[in-house]
């Protein structure tokens, strides 16, 4: 092979950097903000701590506000990431992700009130974790592998919580707190924030 000149080397380096930048920019269309997930995880841990310190378990007065607070937090972080990367905030992919997750989340909302009314509040942590896991796993089809993995883990935690409801609060903390923070960190480190 002919020995490459300095120009050839510079061009090769620049081309590889261009390929990497383009791939990052393209995948960031579907990537959820890692910092957003960390913030949502922090809310999850805070909610679990409040519930634990007051011995309230899956109290709706704690968990519903926590879930509602997470919506604007996640939206703001995703929008900030999209803006930083100069990609459309409401791109086709993120829209699909939201629509695919919506039925599972709507079912979760409905079941929350039905189970609570029927006095089956002990099943709420398992149901929340399972349905959120189902939504994230399906929505993750349009995102990076870490999101799909997170969905699968939520399903496993949910399954445990459904059959061992006495560990419900621990599993809520592990899922909505721990898993969100862990996957958020992974996105920050490997998928640009």
């Amino acid at each position: 092979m002919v020995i490459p000149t300095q120009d050839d080397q510079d061009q090769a380096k620049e081309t590889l950097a261009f390929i990497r930048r383009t791939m990052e920019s393209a995948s960031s269309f579907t990537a959820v903000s890692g910092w957003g997930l960390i913030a949502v995880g922090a809310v999850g841990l805070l909610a679990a701590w409040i519930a634990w310190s007051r011995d309230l378990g899956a109290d709706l007065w704690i968990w519903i506000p926590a879930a509602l607070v997470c919506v604007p937090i996640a939206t703001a972080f995703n929008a900030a990431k999209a803006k930083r990367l100069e990609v459309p905030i409401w791109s086709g992919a993120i829209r699909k992700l939201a629509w695919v997750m919506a039925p599972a989340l709507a079912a979760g909302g409905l079941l929350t009130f039905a189970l609570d009314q029927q006095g089956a509040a002990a099943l709420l942590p398992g149901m929340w974790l399972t349905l959120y896991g189902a939504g994230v796993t399906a929505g993750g089809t349009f995102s990076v592998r870490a999101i799909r993995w997170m969905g699968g883990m939520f399903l496993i935690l949910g399954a445990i919580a459904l059959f061992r409801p006495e560990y419900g609060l621990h599993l809520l903390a592990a899922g909505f707190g721990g898993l969100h923070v862990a996957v958020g960190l992974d996105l920050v480190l490997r998928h640009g924030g």
Partner: protein
Amino acid sequence: MVASSPTESLDRLVHERIRLGIVSALAAEEAMSFADLKKVLRTSDGNLSVHARKLEEAGYIKVQKGFEDRKPKTEYRLTTKGRRALEHYLKQMEAILSEARDALERS
């Protein structure tokens, strides 16, 4: 024939900057719309169409035309041939750098 420069043997279809961008973006994302690709590559409609058509003719990408919310939508995907072409191109780029490193070590 022996190439006089390492860049001469590169696949010209992939080497052109916009086409390289299209192929790279589609290697990271399974399917992308025309509008999303245009944003990622920061190029014009005309430029993107011309280069995407060349890649389509070569069988490197697949184009699917349809409608979303009654608006026409064009979606692009990388074919196996296109992915192989990008992988081969990346290997060539890496070879240029490792060849240069070897030459430096020998000197």
